[in-house]
């Protein structure tokens, strides 16, 4: 078999990488190995449309099969890579097949973090794959009682979807408020209120300590001594990067596969990108982060592909993600916890943006919330300001009548 570019993990990141290799003019073999049996699909809808759509939900594929053929990308589904022989530059698959590589990309993603007391319950679920989504969806019936452990994005999006399906929902959050990670309190509050208005019960400072199954139910015991009887519990307490393959190959790993600013692992022929890697962000003084965000996975996949072909590009994108809950759209660009000062800008009547400035006045993040896509355009402009290291005038940021685009021209 001829050596070529090999990608392990056919999620958002791996697929983008495969196409980017072709877009960069590479003509050798491109092999994309994925453990899932489906043609690669988008995950963000799984907690949103997939849960609430009237019709039987369909997977939204990242690229049509014809496109894989047209670009001559060999997609090998239902195949788990079980080891990497770095000496002979071979990837070994579970079924003993071997794929030789010239350069290798690990795009193995992340999986839901397990909550040990819940692992043996038949009524506890996590959400990462389309199959997970179907299993949860089938149980979101009107009147069903659902406990969601973890007030992060996936838990809260599921809470909103479950309410839309007529289920009753209790969210258990061990910390003092929902969305502690990555979302400022003022915005978390808007979302918290919206959930409570929709009838969701949110219990903060409370942990779930044990899960006891009966035939049809699960009794969830809380750290405050209460017990909630539910039809199902969903565990949404974050994700763990998939690093076992990298570790067993002797690559450096920590909270993720460790890469440099070109997304190279400790083996220069092997790259890692997307949810599985921990990387330095040039924009924030080389701070090491691991993101679980869709656009990051795409952009890192593309950049890793170009670097596999010798481009030597540094990853410089501004972190960005969105979340949809009910009619509300949330978007965050940059890292809000880098900010020392917060400036609020109202966008129309129902939406607002918080600008987060560092001690030296540099714009380091912007977070916004409002109905539909009311904050999208301004968050995008903020992102461009962040990328430039701009120090916008706080008064102008706050003034709704000053167009952000005009600050970009300054």
């Amino acid at each position, binding site marked *: 078999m001829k050596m070529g570019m090999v990608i392990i993990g056919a999620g958002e990141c791996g697929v*983008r990488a495969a196409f980017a290799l072709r877009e960069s003019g590479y003509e050798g073999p491109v092999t994309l190995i994925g453990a899932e049996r489906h043609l690669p699909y988008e995950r963000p809808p799984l907690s949103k449309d997939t849960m609430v759509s009237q019709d039987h939900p369909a997977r939204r594929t*990242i*690229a049509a099969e014809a*496109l894989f053929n047209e670009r001559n990308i060999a997609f090998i589904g239902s195949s788990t890579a079980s080891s990497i022989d770095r000496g002979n530059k071979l990837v070994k698959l579970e079924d003993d097949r071997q794929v030789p590589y010239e350069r290798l990309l690990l795009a193995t993603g992340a999986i839901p973090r397990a909550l040990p007391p819940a692992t043996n319950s038949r009524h506890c679920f996590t959400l990462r794959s389309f199959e997970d989504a179907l299993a949860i969806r089938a149980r979101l019936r009107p009147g069903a009682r659902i406990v969601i452990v973890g007030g992060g994005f996936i838990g809260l999006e599921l809470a909103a979807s479950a309410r839309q399906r007529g289920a009753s929902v209790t969210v258990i959050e061990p910390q003092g408020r929902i969305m502690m990670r990555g979302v400022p309190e003022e915005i978390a509050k808007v979302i918290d209120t919206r959930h409570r208005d929709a009838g969701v019960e949110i219990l903060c400072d409370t942990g779930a300590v044990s899960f006891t199954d009966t035939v049809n139910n699960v009794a969830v015991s809380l750290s405050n001594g209460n017990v909630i009887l539910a039809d199902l519990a969903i565990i949404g307490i974050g994700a763990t990067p998939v690093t076992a393959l990298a570790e067993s190959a002797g690559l450096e790993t920590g909270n993720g596969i460790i890469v440099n600013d070109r997304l190279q692992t400790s083996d220069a022929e092997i790259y890692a990108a997307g949810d599985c890697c921990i990387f330095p962000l040039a924009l924030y003084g080389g701070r090491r982060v691991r993101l679980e965000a869709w656009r990051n996975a795409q952009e890192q996949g593309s950049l890793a592909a170009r670097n596999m072909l010798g481009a030597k590009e540094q990853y410089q994108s501004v972190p960005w993600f969105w979340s949809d809950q009910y009619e509300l759209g949330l978007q965050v660009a940059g890292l809000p916890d880098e900010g020392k000062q917060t400036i609020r800008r109202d966008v129309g009547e129902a939406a607002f943006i918080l600008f987060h400035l560092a001690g030296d006045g540099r714009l380091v993040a912007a977070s916004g919330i409002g109905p539909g*896509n009311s904050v999208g*355009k301004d968050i*995008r402009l903020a992102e461009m300001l962040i990328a430039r290291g701009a120090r916008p005038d706080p008064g102008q940021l706050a003034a709704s009548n000053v167009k952000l685009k005009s600050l970009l021209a300054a």
Partner: protein
Amino acid sequence: MSNWIEACAPDDIDEEDVMRFDHAGKTFAIYRSPDDEFFATDGLCTHEHIHLADGLVMDEIIECPKHNGRFNYKTGEAKGAPVCVNLRTYPVKVESGKVLIELG
């Protein structure tokens, strides 16, 4: 047969900006380019049916406000992931202080 519909006045749209225009149960986006020309496309992103008029216009690109999918609004061309289906475009002309769009 041509079917020119009045959409707005030129000054309803800033330079390098976009406006939503609804007509006969359909939604469109009308653009004014930085060099003061007018263009029109279907109003919804081809990824998730989001109104493009809430998006950002930069040069000849409209960027979707939802996941930043990019289209060239002059040609309708989708500029890459997450958008892969082009936008339909419509002829536009400015006549006697009105922006007209031709909906075949």
